Every structure is written in C-alpha cells, then in structure tokens.
C-alpha cells in the first residue's frame, strides 16, 4: 500500500503539470461565460435536410482553352463589395452570437465580399480553391440566395467527400503501418461511402465501435474494424497483445473523438488529489471508472496476424482484468469492474453484446451531439465553443447548475452549444446538415478584417473571422490548381487489382503513406502533414516553410513557363498586360487585384513579358493571402 501511494506521489508532479494544460487552454474563453449564459433567444424553425442533386461540377479541365476562357471571365467580373451587405440574422447561430455581442457592446466585422466568401467556403468545405469559372459564375449571379445554393452544391460534391474522408483518416490516424495497407484502404473506402450516403453520424460511430473482423483483409464487412485495430497496444513483442491496454486506448480515443472528453489523466491515477484545479468533473473520477468504461471492450480481442498485414477482432476475451500489467501505464491493481458508462452510471446487461450497448449509450447521450458540433465548429470558426475540443469538463456545462467559485461555466456560449447539439440530433445526426447550418450563418460569413482595433476580449464572441493557414493538403492542391501543373500520382492497388484513375488532388488518397513524389512529400511534411503513425503535428509556421515556398522545386518548377503551366498559357495568350494580371490573380488568389497591385504588377509584364509573368506567378504563390484561409 505504501508503495502504491508513493508511486502516485512521485507521479503527481508530472500528472498535475500535464493536467494543468487544460486549465490553460480553457482559461481565456471562460471569462465571458457567465454573461453569455444568461442570453436566451427563441430558436427559429429551420428547414429540414433537403435532398441534393448529385455533383454537377464539370470535372474535365480544358487547359488548352484557358486563356480565352479567362479573358472573357475577367472582362465580366464586378468589383468586390461588402459594405452594403446587410447583417440580417439568418439562423439560431446568429441569434445567439449577435445577441451576445449586442448585449455586451462588442463591435463586429462587416460581411465578407463574394470573392472572399467563395474562396473561404470552398476551402472549408472541400479543401480546394475555386476555379476561375466557378468564381465568375458565382460573382455574376444576382440571386440573393446564391451563397446558400453554393453551400448546398459544395456539400453535395465529390470534393466534399474527399476532404472530410481524409480529415477523418487523420483524426482516426488510419495508418497502413499499424493495420496494413488493405485494411487502411478498406477503412478509407468505408468512410467515403458513409459520407457520400450522409449516413447518420450515430450510426457511423456505432458501426465503428461494434465492428468485428474474422479476417480483416478479405471480408468487406470488416472495413470499419480498422478503426479499433489501429489502437492495438503490443506487449513485449509487436505481435503479442496487451488486452487491457488496448481496451483502455480504444475508450480513451473514442471518448476524445465522440464525447470530447480526455480520460488520459485518470487512465493512470484517480482524479482526487490531482485534478481539483484542472478538471472539476474528472477530479471526482477514479481510475476504476475508466476501467469500467474500458470493460465494454473487455471481451474484445484485437490480434495482429504476424507478417501478413492482417488482424482479427473477436469477442472471445475473458473480460477486463483489474489486476493486469501494462506496457504504457502503471500496472493495474484494484477492485474488479463491471462495464459501466461513466457519464450516466448505466451498467451493461451482461447477457447482451457489450459493445452494442456501449455504442447505444454513447450516441444517445447529449454529450455525443455537443462534442461533435463543437469539433466541427472549431473547423469552421477557428476556435471551439469549448476549448480544447477534447477537454470538456462535465461539471462546468450547465448554466442552471453552476460550479463553485472560482470555476466558471466552460462553454463561451452554452445556449448556442445546446442549440447546435439539439439541431444535430433533430436532423438525424447528418454531418451535411450540420455543416450547412454552420456555413449559412452570417456569423461564419463575417470578414476577417476588423475596422476598429481588435481586442483579445472579443475573441469568444466570434466578432470576426479568424484566419487559418491552409492545411498541407490544401496547399498542395491550391498550388497545382493555381499553376495548372497537375500531378498524376499512381494509386496503389493494394487489394483488388482493378485499374483506378490516378490521383490529382491529395485528399483523393486513402493515406499519405503511399502517394506523392519526393518533392510533394517534402512540401506536405514541411507544412505539418500528419503521418498518422503518431501524434498529429502542430500546425505551426516555420522558416523552412517559407523556404519551400520560395525555393523548392515543387513550387519553382510550376512557376516556370513550360508545358501546361499557367505562366506559359499567359505568355502565349493575346491578353493585355492588365488582363493577364487579373487572370492570374483570379486563378491563384480567387479575387481581383487591387488598384495598387495592378499598378505594380503590370509594370513587371511590360518590362519583360516572360520574366514579369513568372515573377507574378511566384509572388502570388508566396503572397500571405495565398497561404491562409481568411
């Protein structure tokens, strides 16, 4: 007993420090929680999920005709305008956010203009910049509902499936090095199918959590099982298994993804004495509570089949042993546990399949909807309503039942979070509906430029758009789109040898491991691509990124006027210098140049047509508004 205690004491220093990170992350947004909590607005009735026509985007790219096409496009483009667009609250998101801003006298940015909106929503929904044709069609459309229609069109497109399937591959870290190439591709294919069908998210998660695999490679039914197998923790050798460790890992990861809860702390020690100043809810939980959650997977065995890129998942285990050794944590020593869902205290019926019960309890709990909407809110608004998105403190969610001082309610706008969760559940957990309501809100469509001085205290109000760097995949696709030099990466045919089209856009790939040439891989890695094997890297800027943009072969070879490059097309065209500048701005930055920019760039081309055009293409790719979604 003495020994156990002392281990915990020694461990305390690290654990407290570790856990304190959450305090730090959660701190800033909580400042305004109290005020926001009082705002209560009626929820407008929103249209239910409409049927969508399949993607009608023209997928062929007549590169040869581009100069002519672009010249006609440029002539017809209107100047950007945004100042006159009226701020009219569109849906319950606006009701909540603008009411909170109004109440606290927080000024907000103006509406984004059409060009900015189009580039932003294309990148956020599909991960790709709009083509000149798409821009021209959109900005010349006089329909006042054109933004909504564009959102509908994008959400129904193949590119939307590509972006979010790849995004889920990163989130789940779907990685051939862990589960083998065939299973990685199968899981990816299954995610793509689920997204294409707009499968209700509760059903999707249930299928992931309940998958079994008698043979992961040859049984298509086993496709979602890669999700569980990916968290397999080996024992002393790669092919042995640490059954309880694997169960722990599965519920820890699943709780992060699907409930926004981080149980890492209590996977080693109880919350009492550690987490009182970190996570109020978790400070009352014990390590045994996590074991009881993991016990839903107590009979589940994930076995890696040696040397064959295969695994099996079956229900032939002996249950969760609370006196077992661990490869990654302190060894277990405690009372036997029964499968119990921590959030509700509900116990499993031992006569029925445990994992199905777990999936039911998880997806029917309100926290499932809240965590999911918060996760996607962050993707579209740059900052979660609860931060970090996997750090919900369950004792600090209910404004009617506030935590003791100095704690505050955690969500910056609890009613908005509540409303979003309800909307998601009422719309059969449709991810498409969720993304539609997020992007259709005027709050999403605000400009990133703020007319007066920005104050840090405005941040939780979402009073303007927060800019973000393009992801490495988005940057790759934007460079090839802007320059017109498309790659054709061969697909690996891991399992079924049917010929498939080569990969043009990065997110068409199942996993980053098997595609791209050396130049492309270097670019993506430098810009923070996940290798999916280990923790996803932080999306930071770096000196090397700037070097890559200025001096890497991937970029400079595409700037050069040769082959299909847009520089070459422009040089060979009969366009005037001004038209060339406008066409290149449109293709790279999805907007018209400003007067000043046009004035500067036209002199380059007038001085030397080839050098001027190549320099302009290089400069456009290195402009900061190319590297950011703003």
């Amino acid at each position, binding site marked *: 007993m003495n020994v156990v205690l002392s281990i915990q004491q020694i461990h305390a220093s690290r654990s407290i420090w570790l856990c304190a990170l959450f305090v730090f992350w959660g701190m800033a947004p909580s400042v305004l929680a109290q005020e926001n909590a009082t705002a209560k607005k009626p929820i407008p009735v929103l249209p239910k999920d409409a049927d969508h026509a399949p993607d009608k985007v023209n997928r062929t790219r007549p590169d040869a005709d581009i100069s002519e096409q672009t010249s006609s496009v440029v002539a017809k483009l209107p100047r950007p305008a945004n100042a006159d667009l009226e701020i009219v609250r569109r849906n319950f998101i606006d009701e909540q956010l603008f009411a909170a801003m109004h109440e606290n006298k927080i000024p907000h940015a103006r509406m984004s203009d059409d060009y900015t909106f189009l580039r932003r929503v294309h990148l956020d929904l599909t991960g790709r910049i709009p083509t000149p044709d798409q821009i021209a069609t959109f900005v010349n459309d006089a329909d006042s509902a054109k933004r909504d229609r564009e959102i509908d069109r994008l959400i129904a497109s193949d590119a939307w499936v590509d972006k979010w399937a790849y995004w889920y591959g990163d989130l789940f870290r779907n990685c051939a090095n862990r589960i083998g190439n065939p299973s990685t591709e199968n899981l990816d294919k299954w995610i793509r199918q689920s997204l294409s069908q707009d499968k209700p998210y509760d059903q999707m998660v249930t299928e992931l959590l309940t998958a079994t695999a008698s043979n992961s490679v040859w049984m298509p039914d086993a496709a979602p099982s890669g999700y569980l197998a990916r968290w397999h923790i080996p024992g002393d050798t790669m092919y042995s298994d640490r059954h309880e460790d694997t169960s722990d890992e599965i519920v820890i990861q699943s709780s992060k993804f699907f409930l926004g809860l981080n149980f890492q702390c209590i996977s080693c020690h109880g919350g009492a004495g550690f987490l009182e100043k970190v996570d109020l809810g978790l400070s009352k939980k014990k390590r045994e509570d996590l074991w009881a959650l993991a016990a839903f997977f107590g009979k589940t065995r994930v076995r890696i089949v040696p040397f064959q890129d295969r695994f099996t998942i079956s229900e032939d285990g002996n249950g969760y042993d609370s006196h077992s050794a661990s490869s990654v944590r302190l060894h277990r020593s405690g009372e036997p546990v029964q499968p119990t869902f921590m959030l509700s205290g509900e116990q499993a019926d031992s006569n029925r399949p445990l994992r199905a019960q777990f999936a039911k309890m998880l997806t029917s709990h309100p926290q499932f909807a809240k965590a999911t909407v918060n996760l996607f809110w962050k993707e579209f608004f740059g900052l979660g309503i609860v931060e970090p998105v996997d750090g919900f403190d369950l004792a600090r969610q209910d404004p009617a039942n506030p935590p003791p001082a100095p704690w505050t309610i955690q969500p910056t706008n609890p009613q908005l979070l509540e409303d979003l969760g309800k909307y998601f559940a009422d719309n059969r957990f449709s991810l498409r509906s969720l993304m539609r309501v997020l992007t259709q809100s005027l709050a999403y469509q605000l400009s990133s430029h703020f007319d007066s001085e920005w104050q840090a205290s405005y941040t939780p109000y979402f009073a303007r758009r927060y800019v973000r760097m393009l992801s490495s995949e988005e940057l790759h696709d934007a460079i090839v789109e802007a320059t017109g030099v498309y790659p054709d990466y061969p697909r690996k045919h891991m399992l079924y040898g049917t010929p498939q089209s080569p990969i043009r856009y990065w997110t068409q790939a199942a996993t980053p491991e098997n595609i791209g040439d050396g130049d492309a891989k270097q670019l993506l890695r430098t810009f923070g691509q996940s290798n999916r094997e280990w923790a996803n890297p932080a999306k930071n800027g770096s000196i090397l990124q*700037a070097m890559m943009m200025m001096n890497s072969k991937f970029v400079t070879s595409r700037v050069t006027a040769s082959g299909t490059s847009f520089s070459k097309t422009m040089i060979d065209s009969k366009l005037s210098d001004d038209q060339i500048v406008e066409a290149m701005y449109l293709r790279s930055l999805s907007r018209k140049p400003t007067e000043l920019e046009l004035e500067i760039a036209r002199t380059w081309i007038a001085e030397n047509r080839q050098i001027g055009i190549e320099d302009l293409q290089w400069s456009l790719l290195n402009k900061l508004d190319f590297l950011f979604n703003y």
Partner: protein
Amino acid sequence: MELVEQARFSFQLLAHMTHSIDKRSPFYLQRRELLRLGGLSVVGGSLPWMASTRVKAADDKLPRGTARQVIFINLEGGMSQPDSLDAKQGPWTPNYFDIQACGNGVMLPVGVFLNLPKILDKVSVVRSMAAWDAVHGRAQYYIQTGHPLNPALSKEVPAIGAVVCHELADKRRTTDSLPAYISMNMSGNQAGLINNGFLSAEYGPLNLSIDKGPPDLAPRKEMAETMQRRWGRLQALDQGLRQSQPGLDRSFTDYHQYYRGAWNIMNDPRVPDIFSINDDDKTRYGQSSIGTSLALARNLLRADAGTRFILASHGGWDHHSDIYKPGSRNHPVLMSELDKAFTSLVLDLAALPGSGDRSKSLLDETLIVCMSEFGRTPGEVSATRAGREHYIHAHCGMFAGGGVVQGGVIGKTDAVGGAITDFGWSPGRPIYMEDVACTIYSAMGINWTKKVEETPSGRAFHFVETASGTSYVDFQPINELFA
C-alpha cells in the same frame, strides 16, 4: 573494475537508505527498484570509498561543460546489438561478418565495419542500454525528448535539442544566421519531429530532408539574381499584409517573420559552401543519406554559423524480416553506411580546430551520440522470416568527443546479447535515454536537474523527470563516460 562498480553501487544504496527517513518514500521504492533491476549484492566496498564517492556525488550535480555543440545520430528503427557494436558469433552470423575483438575488447564485425576499428581509440562504446518502450513512436519520442510520452503533455514538452538551444540563447551572436537546432531526415519519424514545445519557436528544429545530396537552401547560383528580384517584387506586392496595421489579423505579420528568417539564411554568404559537399567527401562519407547528413553536420560546425545541436536520423533499421538478405537495404548495408559516415565525421572533426578554443580540436568540443530507440531480439533470427523483432532489454551505442573518454567501453551482455551481465556504471542498472539526456545536458554545461517554471500552464518543466513512464529511477549523467 567490477569491484569498483559494485562499491559505488553499494554506496548509493546505503546513502538512499540513510536518507530515506527525511526524504520520504520515493527512496524505498528506488531501493526496491535497484534490488530488482540489479540483483547485485548489497555488501561490498568500504567506508573510505563511500566517503569519497559521496563528495563526488555532490560534485556530480555540477554540469561538466566539456562540450560546445552536439551531434546526435539517431539510428531509427532499432539497430541489432548482437550484429553491430556488441557483436555475438552464432550460427546466424553471416560468414563475411568476420567478428573480431577490437580495441578494449569490443567485438565488431570487421567484415562490415571496415573503418570503425581504426577510430575505436577516439570513441566510447556503451553496451548496457535499455529502453522503456517497444513501440517505435513512443521510443522515438524518448530519443528526442528524454521524456516518456504522455499525449496530454506532448504539446508542451520541448525536444532535448530545443532545451539545449534555449539554454545557450545568451551565447548566440549577431553573426549566427543559421538556426541553433537543425534536424535531418526526421520528417518520417514515427514520433513526428518534436518541436520547441512551450519554448520560443526560435529554439525549434529546422528539419532538412536529405537524400543523396544536400538540400538547396540557398538558391542555385544562376538563380540568385532571379531570387533577389522576386524577393523585392514580393515585398512590394504584399506589403499590405506583411506590415502590421490595425484591423489586420496578426497571423499574417507573424508569418512574415518566418519569411525574414528564411531570407537571412538564403542570403548568408556561408550557406552555399556549407550546403555543398565535394566529390572526395562524398566518397569518404559514402553515398548515403547518413553520409550526406554527417558531412553536412561537419560543414555546419566548421562554419560556426550558429548551429549548436544537430539531430541526424539514419532510417531503415527496422528489419523484422530478411535482416541479412543480400541485394536489399539490409542491416549490413546500413551498418556499412554508418561505418563510413561516422568514421569520417570523427576523423574530420578531430583534424579541425575548435570554434570556441582553437587549441582544441572540433571533436574535443563536440559531443557525438549515436544510438537507437531500442535493440532487436537477440540470438537466432526468427525462423519465419529471418529477422529480429523489437527488444527493450539491451541495446548499444557510441559516444565520442566533448570530453568523452577515448577508447572506453561500458557494459557487457550475455553470450547472445540478450541480457546485460555487467552494467558497467555506478548505479548498477541499465542506461536509459533519460541518463543519456542528463549526459548531454551535463556535457553542454547545463544542470540537468533544472526545471523551468515559466511554462504556459504555470507548472514546472523538469529537464529530466525523476520517474519513467512506469517506474521511479534516479536518472543521472553517465559519469563513467568522462575521464
């Protein structure tokens, strides 16, 4: 030798027991740990020994400060100890390995390590290392940070290199245009490239991807003029976003700082020379990624342009199958690559004058560490696919320069290289990555027991923690490596 080791061990044990009253329970645990790990006798040594060691122990808390810069060679994937620096003859050994006793009784496959025997007198070999984790990701995280991986912490924990560069920050000169921390071929690392953590971004690594040739950091000569013109034009065209102004999101101007850093490097007149490697060097270092990396490391240190910590990764050691298979990039091929590159590096640094003190050699000033995240299963290769699996109970490495004993050897293993039979250093337990981290910090003049209070979370960051992921261990520098 063994008696001495045992004496030191016994002293420590007794010291812990005496202190245990006022120092609370951790020491009970440590005693248990030592007994379990060491299995050595508690009796031995004498009082005078103890007394002198005791003073030394106190002195040991002072960093040595014998090195000015570090090159860490990361043999990624797990080098097989019974095939390399702790070679064991067995039925599995290919004939051409030709295992022989070299300097200090180090057994080497001289048929593969053609050059290494010639420089053993400049190197210390360590054969009593052990790892905590058998998974690449976690173990490589250890290599980079000296800390156990905790996903909840990982955003805040800096790499060892970043800590070193942070500690050396006040020594940085205005002429130092290159980043203090440069890593090579780390982008495919299974732990990811560990960054500056909570420390300022300037201490984070600049990671270079190096294949057969050095990277083009500076524009090629014929492109220099073009690049100058383009830079000027970009500044004119993009001034609206690159200059701070009210209402503009700060991310833009922040990002411009990376452009400025990049531009400084691209225009440093030393850079083209640093990043070019002549044909003679290519031959001597070998036409391999590690050869290029180490030739580049030499250039970087010779130029003394601000780089103080280099992490060079040599990938591909993870041979679960066909470990000796001819015609593949097998273990002997990698060993041969390492042999050429490492030997040339040591010889070149020994022949160059030091940057801080011209009377010393550059090798005297540079601590070189060369090791894997773990070892490989010893004895016979696997029957199923002729390879070796991950193994945490024994592996090996090399240390050189920066005050390290020339021609030293620490630790012994059993007949197959699977169990450590002599730890070869005072704590009487295996040498872990935390101990290597202590050693690096100490050699660089940094007190390894330091902690940084000013973290974003407000909680202290210990340079080296006192507990591993699963046990309590009193980590310390490998004093036996130094004279």
